[in-house]
């Protein structure tokens, strides 16, 4: 089922942020030496939700195309919030990178779709897409300090 209304896209954003936060929390529990870095990402996710909600609730008016602003297929951005059993740290980080790439792609696309209709929301989406991409580089650094586990 494709997403068209702003409300369902907001709900989807929150779900992605929660699910990816859950992923990092789970990985942090399994690989404690890197827990601090991973839990920083969880905190950032909460900030993203605040940013998105502020933009949406601040800009939503009855006069713009709130119900017609998006065309998103959530299947394209699906990921597992629980790491696979017995996963290695390397595999967990690679899965995280894949997840971040999907989420960044979602925000970039949703930002472009809503540019002419809900400018503030679009700006926040584009900003979070950028942050997510930056985050990928940081996550990759975790691999460089990889210890056999």
């Amino acid at each position, binding site marked *: *089922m494709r*997403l*068209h*209304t*702003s*409300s*369902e896209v907001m*709900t989807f954003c929150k779900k992605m942020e929660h699910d990816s936060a859950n992923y990092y929390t789970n990985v942090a529990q399994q690989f404690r030496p890197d827990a601090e870095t991973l839990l920083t990402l969880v905190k950032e996710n909460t900030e993203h939700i605040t940013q998105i909600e502020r933009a949406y*609730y*601040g800009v*939503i*008016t*009855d*006069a*713009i*195309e*709130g*119900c*017609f*602003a998006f065309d998103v297929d959530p299947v394209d951005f699906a990921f597992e919030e629980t790491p696979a059993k017995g996963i290695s740290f390397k595999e967990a980080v690679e899965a995280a990178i894949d997840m971040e790439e999907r989420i960044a792609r979602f925000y970039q696309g949703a930002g472009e779709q809503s540019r*002419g*209709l809900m400018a503030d929301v679009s700006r926040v989406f584009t900003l979070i897409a950028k942050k997510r991409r930056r985050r990928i580089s940081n996550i990759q650094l975790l691999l460089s300090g990889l210890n056999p586990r």
Partner: protein
Amino acid sequence: MAILEEPIKEPVNVKNYIGGDWTESKGKLQDVVNPADGKVIARVPISTADELGDAVLAAKDAFPDWRRTTPLARSRLLFRLKELMEKNFEEVSRIQSQEHGKCIDESRGETRRGIENVEVACGIPTLMQGYCSEDVASGIDEWTLPTPLGVFGIIGPFNFPWMIPLWSAPYAVATGNCVIIKPSSEVPISQMRLAELVEEAGFPPGVWNVVNGGTSVVGAMLDHHEIRGITFVGSTPTGKDVVYRRCGETGKRVIAQCGAKNFMTIMPDCDVDRTISAMMTSFFGNTGQRCLAAANAVIVGDDGFYKPFVDKVIERAAAIKIGYGLDESVQMGPLRDKQKKDKVCRYIELGVKEGAKLRLDGRNFAVSRDYPDICFLGPTIFEGVQPNMRIGSEEIFGPVMSILRAKNLDQAIQMSNASPFGNGHSIFTNDGKSAREFQYNIESGNVGINVGITAPVAFFPFSGMKDSFFGVLHTQGREAVRFFTESKVVIQRWF
């Protein structure tokens, strides 16, 4: 997507709020029905003229002290109200979807627009300042003092139960007046919740009153000699022949914002995809039940532009998801009640009889999930509409798009200006010259350039011309401040 939780779980007994007390009315009770599922969600009293009289007395008693309360102190109460509105944002939005049927994005938009008026009214210490000239004659100074008048009546419509009374009430109380709000009896719950927030914010008793009811309350408001002015939003026949006329007879100030038939001119150089998105919202948003909804699409250009454009419009409209407004995936809710749906259906039949081509028939739409098909109606699109047809000239107030064709921009403007209404005409184009020509020549109080719903933000007047507006000053912003104040001019000389 899940259905959002309903804030109203049991039928609410709607009460009047008079002089700071929640009072049971002596009038008979009427059911308030959720148009999506047909369930009774509240019972509203049809109050008597005497109860309106009680509210006027309470407001009149509160006025002297409220007037003496400094603008800064009044503004602090409004700031507190704004905070409470933000805190309860989601709840009041969902109430609107339950009582009116609109989609949750639309309800949240309505909530935000209402709050914006409170925010603007918070600036009353500067908004209400007069002006001064020294030495208008030698040794004589002169200045104006904007002063409140007393008690005002605010009559709300059914289509925006939360927002529309907020176009007036914050400015009325910010300037030191007291108000009596009469919400539409079809959708009274939002205003009851708002009055609860007003009470929680700490407004003194009698400053903000709510009397529920129907025509007898309106009649009593219009006739009451202690009510100094009325703001009204509703149909043109009532606004013009009842509210405007009777306010004139009883010496009241009046803002009567009335009906519309809005024309959207589409130029062949427009951004097609964005224009169509804007069209979906403008024609079908709020299920077409808004005075700024586009009704007639005037398409300029030859067949090379016209045919694929119209096909795309129909394709997009046909895909609109219809259902309960608290289902987040729904793009169009039901009409407010069955009578309104029946009226729109009669117009659809009429359009066919008049010879317009029915390209998309909203009567054949499927409703998402298992809701009773009482008030739902899909988007309807007619082609080949002529300006003299009734579907092209009368206000339908439903999700019906009439497509007309014009040879050029001049002809499109002529067609729009031939309408007796002048509320919210718009143009979609990428050409600055066309946009300016349109803005300059169009007879419309609110003009949209690549904006389909020409709703001014709170610090601009909600304008309107011709049969869409009766009065002089408008609601919102500085004009509202002027409407709710009288200019006292002081001329001073000292010997």
